[in-house]
């Protein structure tokens, strides 16, 4: 087209050019406008407005900047722009609940937001500057913010050791290990867990009918008021063996298979016939058996349901040992005798101590249990099963593997299977798209998935082999927290560096004490350097606390120290030599560094000092409100009648200085006493050397201690 005809552009073409020009300009304008009114700018403005109506406006706006704010920690791959809107997060004056979000300050915490960012704990999308993108699940971000009630899960991603600040996480981990989840699932950093009992000789222990009932009917239930609906089943406060969804046919097959398990014949299962003959004339056999049962403090470990009127309550017990209410209708007589004689003969790993009982004692106790702790109606509902047929046993053997029984119970014929259930080591960071929700009508997110799996596995997956766990909501939340903390391997070396590993806690004494430690199963009740159970006192510092002589005496004849406690150490009938070996080990090896009983010269505790101590004890510090001396005082703390023989002066001094250092969590108040006061109180306390009626110490009222000079 010649230049002269330039102005002859058609009307259509001009229109098209004009429209496209306007469209381009419009797109540019819209883009600019969107940038201008970005969501985060609105929060920036409203923070300024909010600060202006507060008295500390200047302070709040001292570091205000109208641009995007972020915490940038490249080595941890953190770029968190949360503080762009959450502008009050580090401002202490915005801590109270009346401050509107997103301006509220963070509650007091252990990690500074500026050093750690936000998403490391809270998850969500740190890079985002829009509310929906930052907090939720969107098309381009599948790790939404972690609901606050599971926040402790984030502690657990790094802190593999238990934290006292994260009780829900600790409880969840406890449940993971006590429910023995790692029998079927791979779990990061698992705590040692207890397997179910070895069943290789279970045919000697119980009848097929009892196995049938155990597998097919609901267990003993303890409701929230503590009322017990007994069903003649073992229960451990909470169920340990979960409910498997078994058909009648499957229960028959499994009971047949298990009743044939008789790998190791029972040893020493007979009582001397002469003893039996002697007792046949003795009418108070069962009464004596009951007295012995009580005297042995069996209920320290074992639950027993006690009926009052028309309701029954659980008494005693702890999670380590089975309920015994109807044990007489469960186990065979020969098995019970053999078991009571030597528990480790049947279950080598059992933590039940071996009591050196004579045949008479054994006969009394076993007859009491078989006749009084029994219920003749227990197996009434079990259909006649007859002898186990070969076909049933074969089917039972197959089921034993298929249902995962072999993962918790040892059997000579089978071994545990690896990778039975899904790997859970990275369960906590799974996205919704990685989970199979099936047809379940639940929210499509990780928390809902885990919780419905815990409450009813079949809801999510009909074919799931996972059994039913009867957990309350708090425990489901705890397990959810523990699973959410399973975040797989650290994503970077820097993050790996932050992981606080679990402290290995095991205690293996050496020398002659090793035999005693295993023989009496000390760890079943006591803690040794963080290893063991917490039924009895922690013995990690026993050597600093008690003189050797006292320990030996106590082991020979245990008695309660705390009158408020209904537990006491069982009477082991320990030989003198064993008691001395144990006392020697405890006194020399189990000491708190810096609290050496030898280091305190008791000659410095004069009687003048002791009378000052008495004043301090009775008047200034009011110790008698918790402790009893000579029948006077409270029952909260231990009885101090024999504090002079039971406690070393070094321990008393260290205890008065800082009780929580010696026993974390003790309720003994820390009073910031002066050195002079501590010495006076120690001088006073070591004067009590009352060794009156040891069995009833704490109740007697006659032993008024007298002040003794010198303390020696």
């Amino acid at each position, binding site marked *: *087209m010649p*230049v*002269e005809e*330039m*102005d*002859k552009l058609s009307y259509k073409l001009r229109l098209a050019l004009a429209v496209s020009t306007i469209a381009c300009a419009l*797109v*540019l304008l819209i*883009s*600019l406008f*969107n*940038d201008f009114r970005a969501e985060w700018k609105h929060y920036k403005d409203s923070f300024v407005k909010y600060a202006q109506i507060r008295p500390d406006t200047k302070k709040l706006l001292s570091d205000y900047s109208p641009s*995007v704010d972020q915490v940038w920690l490249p080595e941890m*791959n953190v*770029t968190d*722009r949360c503080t762009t809107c959450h502008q009050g997060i580090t401002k202490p004056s915005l801590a109270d609940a009346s401050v509107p979000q997103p301006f509220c300050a963070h509650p007091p915490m252990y990690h500074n937001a500026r050093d750690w960012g936000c998403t490391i704990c809270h998850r969500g*999308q740190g*890079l*985002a*500057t*829009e509310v929906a*993108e930052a907090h939720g699940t969107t098309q*381009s971000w599948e790790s939404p913010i972690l609901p606050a009630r599971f926040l402790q899960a984030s502690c657990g991603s790094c802190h593999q050791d238990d934290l006292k600040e994260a009780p829900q996480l600790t409880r969840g981990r406890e449940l993971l290990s006590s429910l023995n989840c790692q029998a079927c699932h791979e779990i990061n950093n698992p705590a040692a867990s207890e397997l179910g009992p070895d069943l290789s000789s279970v045919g000697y222990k119980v009848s097929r009918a009892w196995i049938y009932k155990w597998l097919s009917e609901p267990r003993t239930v303890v409701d929230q008021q503590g009322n017990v609906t007994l069903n003649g089943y073992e229960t451990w406060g909470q169920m340990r063996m979960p409910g498997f969804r078994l058909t009648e046919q499957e229960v028959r097959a499994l009971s047949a298979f298990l009743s044939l398990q008789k790998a190791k014949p029972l040893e020493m299962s007979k009582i001397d016939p002469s003893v039996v003959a002697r007792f046949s004339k003795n009418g108070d056999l069962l009464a004596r058996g009951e007295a012995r049962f009580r005297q042995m403090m069996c209920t320290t470990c074992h639950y027993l349901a006690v009926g009052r009127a028309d309701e029954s309550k659980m008494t005693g017990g702890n999670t380590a040992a089975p309920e015994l209410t109807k044990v007489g209708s469960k186990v065979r007589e020969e098995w019970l005798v053999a078991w009571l004689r030597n528990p480790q003969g049947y279950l080598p790993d059992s933590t039940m101590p071996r009591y050196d009982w004579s045949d008479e004692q054994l006969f009394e106790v076993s007859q009491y249990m078989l006749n009084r702790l029994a219920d003749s109606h227990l197996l009434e509902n079990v259909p006649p099963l007859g002898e186990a047929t070969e076909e049933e046993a074969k089917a039972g053997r197959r089921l034993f593997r298929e249902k995962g029984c072999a993962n918790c119970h040892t059997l000579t014929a089978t071994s545990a299977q690896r990778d039975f259930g899904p790997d859970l080591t990275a369960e906590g960071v799974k996205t919704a798209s990685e989970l199979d929700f099936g047809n379940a009508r639940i929210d499509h997110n990780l928390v809902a998935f885990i919780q419905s799996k815990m409450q009813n596995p079949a809801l999510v997956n009909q074919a799931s082999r996972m059994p039913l766990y009867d957990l309350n909501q708090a425990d489901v939340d705890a397990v959810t927290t523990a699973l959410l903390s399973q975040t797989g391997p650290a994503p970077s070396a820097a993050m790996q560096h932050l992981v606080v590993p679990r402290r290995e806690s095991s205690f293996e004494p050496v020398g002659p004490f090793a035999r005693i430690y295993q023989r009496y199963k000390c760890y079943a009740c006591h803690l040794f350097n963080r290893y063991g159970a917490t039924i009895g006192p922690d013995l990690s510092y026993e050597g600093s606390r008690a003189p050797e002589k006292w320990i030996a005496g106590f082991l020979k004849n245990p008695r309660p120290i705390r009158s408020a406690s209904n537990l006491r150490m069982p009477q082991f009938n320990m030989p003198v030599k064993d008691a001395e070996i144990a006392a020697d080990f405890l006194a020399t090896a189990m000491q708190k560094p810096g609290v050496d009983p030898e280091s305190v010269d008791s000659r410095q505790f004069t009687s003048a000092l002791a009378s000052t101590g008495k004043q301090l004890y009775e008047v200034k510090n009011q110790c008698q409100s918790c402790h009893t001396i000579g029948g006077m005082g409270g029952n909260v703390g231990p009885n101090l009648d024999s504090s002079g023989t039971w406690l070393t002066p070094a321990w008393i001094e260290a205890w008065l200085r800082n009780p929580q250092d010696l026993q974390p969590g003790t309720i003994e108040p820390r009073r910031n006493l002066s050195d002079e006061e501590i010495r006076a109180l120690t001088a006073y306390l070591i004067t009590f050397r009352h060794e009156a009626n040891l069995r009833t110490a704490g109740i007697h009222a006659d032993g008024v201690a007298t002040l003794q000079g010198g303390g020696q």
Partner: protein
Amino acid sequence: MGASFHSALQSLRATRGWKSIFRHNSAVTNRARSLAVRGNLLLHWLPVKVKDRSLRVRTTYYLGSMSLMLFVILVVSGVLLMFYYHPTTPQAYNDMKDLRFVVTNGVLMRNLHRVAAQLMVLLVFCHMFHVFYRGGYKPPHEFNWVVGIVLLLLTLALSYTGYLLPWDQLAFWAITVGTNIISSVPLIGNKVRFVVLGGHVVGESTVLRFYVLHVIILPLLAFLFIALHIWRVQKDGGLTVASKDDEG
């Protein structure tokens, strides 16, 4: 308006600056005009003489020109995006987030680049079909048809290499699937795939490879072939204008 535009142009052509750039005066004869075009670097790849008919919308629908304009838009927006992009993982994805959330007009730039790229693939295909059905591959245009095929492949390669760069799930799996197809080539398939990915799986070295291809090698080749393509249009006697257009 036409007259004033004309006179303004005339006076502009008389300025010293204009003359120093274009070397020639406003030519009056056709011969002088064609010499002026040929003697100028910026104009020489344009046809010396354009038939009125070939400028009508219906003749070409401007499909080739629009593809060229999209290429220019892609280069400009792509260069702007390069200021924010790191070809490393997982930073690449974080850069997408930065463009989305904090870079001024970042969303516009990204979407412009994305939409223009998709539109360019579409228009290049339309252009090809149009030329094909108009018989534009026939002599003397057969070489330029082949150049056009090369340009189509370059466009597709640019599009494919750019697809990985956001480093999101879509990108990762598209490239994984795409390169697995390569590995089904007999004998050399796996080796070729290894070279393309810089490893056995799509990873950081793949991102780097695709980035270099996407921002240097392929655009440079595309630029050379586009220049060749347009230059050959005029060398081969201008646009293919069907006889029915001649009549129309």
